[in-house]
Each structure stands twice: as C-alpha cells, then as structure tokens.
C-alpha cells in the first residue's frame, strides 16, 4: 500500500514563527501536493511538485513556499505564520492522476 506520512497531526505555533510541515511518501511517486482544507471551501491547492527541485504554484501560494530536495519528501514552509493560516493541511502524492493522501496536519496559529 502507498503510504504518505505527515510528520505532525497537530501543531500550535505563534504568529511570526517559521513553520515547517513535512511529508514523506514511500512509493517513488513523481508528483506531490500540498492542499489546505477549510470549512465551506473544500481543498485548495497551495503548491505542486512534479520532480525533485521542481514546483508549480497552485491556487493559493501566497504566504507559503515549498522544498523538494529528495523525491520522497515535500516540505511546506510558512515563512512567517499568521492567524489566517490556521487550517488543516493535507499532503498527497500521485504517479499519474490518482492521489494518495496523508492523515493531515491541523495547524493552529495563535
């Protein structure tokens, strides 16, 4: 089975902190994604990576950056966390079109 692992289930950070969300997949997938999920808004794509060191902006990249130094790992970075970044963050990987998701990280910025 494909496994996508997010490093934390719950995180609480202070406004202005630099925050790293880590995601690892074990199936050698080319594509990896970061989404955020908010009530009433569904899933919105933040960033997408299609290969090591390659990335593409999604629908809501502002306030975020990403890093993909190794194929299996895709990191989401909040350079200076703000309260409006409190959300559920979901990582996914895919080989073609079907995506496999991690369990999610619920981030609260206080």
């Amino acid at each position, binding site marked *: 089975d494909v496994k*996508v692992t997010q490093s934390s289930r719950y995180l609480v950070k202070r406004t202005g902190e630099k925050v790293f969300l880590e995601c690892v997949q074990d199936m050698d997938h*080319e*594509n990896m*994604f970061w*989404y955020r999920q908010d009530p*009433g*808004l*569904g*899933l919105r*794509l933040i960033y*997408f990576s*299609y290969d090591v060191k*390659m990335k*593409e902006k*999604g629908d809501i990249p502002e306030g975020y950056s990403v890093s993909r130094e190794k194929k299996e790992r895709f990191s989401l970075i909040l350079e200076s966390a703000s309260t409006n970044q409190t959300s559920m963050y*979901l990582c*996914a990987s*895919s080989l*073609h*079109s*079907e*995506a*496999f*998701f*991690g*369990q*999610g990280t*619920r981030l609260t910025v206080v």
Partner: protein
Amino acid sequence: AQSVTQLDSQVPVFEEAPVELRCNYSSSVSVYLFWYVQYPNQGLQLLLKYLSGSTLVKGINGFEAEFNKSQTSFHLRKPSVHISDTAEYFCAAPVRGNAGNMLTFGGGTRLMVKP
C-alpha cells in the same frame, strides 16, 4: 470558473435510505474522475475512480458512480446508507497544469446519516 462542482454542501439522510451525491465537471478537466471520502480528523481515502470503459463504476463500502458525458456529471450513489457512512465526500478531477496534472476538488458534500 470552478472545474468540479458539488451541488450540495450537506445531505441529511436516514439510515438505510438511498443517497445520491451530485458532482458536475467542466470541459477544462481531463475526463478522469474520482470520489474521495474523508472521515473526521482523517485524510482523504479513495472511494472509486473512472478512467475509461464502463460508465458505471463500483467502489468500496457499497458506493457506485455513473459517468454521464452528455450531462458532464459523475454522481455518487449508495442504495442503503449506514451510520458509518457519515463523512465528507469530495469529487475530483485532474486539470492540466504547466508541468503535469493537478487534482482539483469540488467543495465537498457532508453526508449526515441519522438513525
């Protein structure tokens, strides 16, 4: 314009009743279609997918969906729901980006099964 639209944000239904969750897609998506389920405080799990072939697709937990090209729809159905089906359901389709396919999601439908 949104590529995938779920017409109902919430669907309440009694246990053992049939249910249909509606999904429409636009021509901007490639015609691979997916339904995912999300139980509380969990990630998303694939229910079923349509890639090609038969327009009636069967998935896990007794769910099925029908691809209808003329109506650009991919509605999810179950003939008899259980309390344990209470969850949020997402319809999704790939959209071609500059460098590959990105999965785009509908807004989600919360299925609430009542005893």
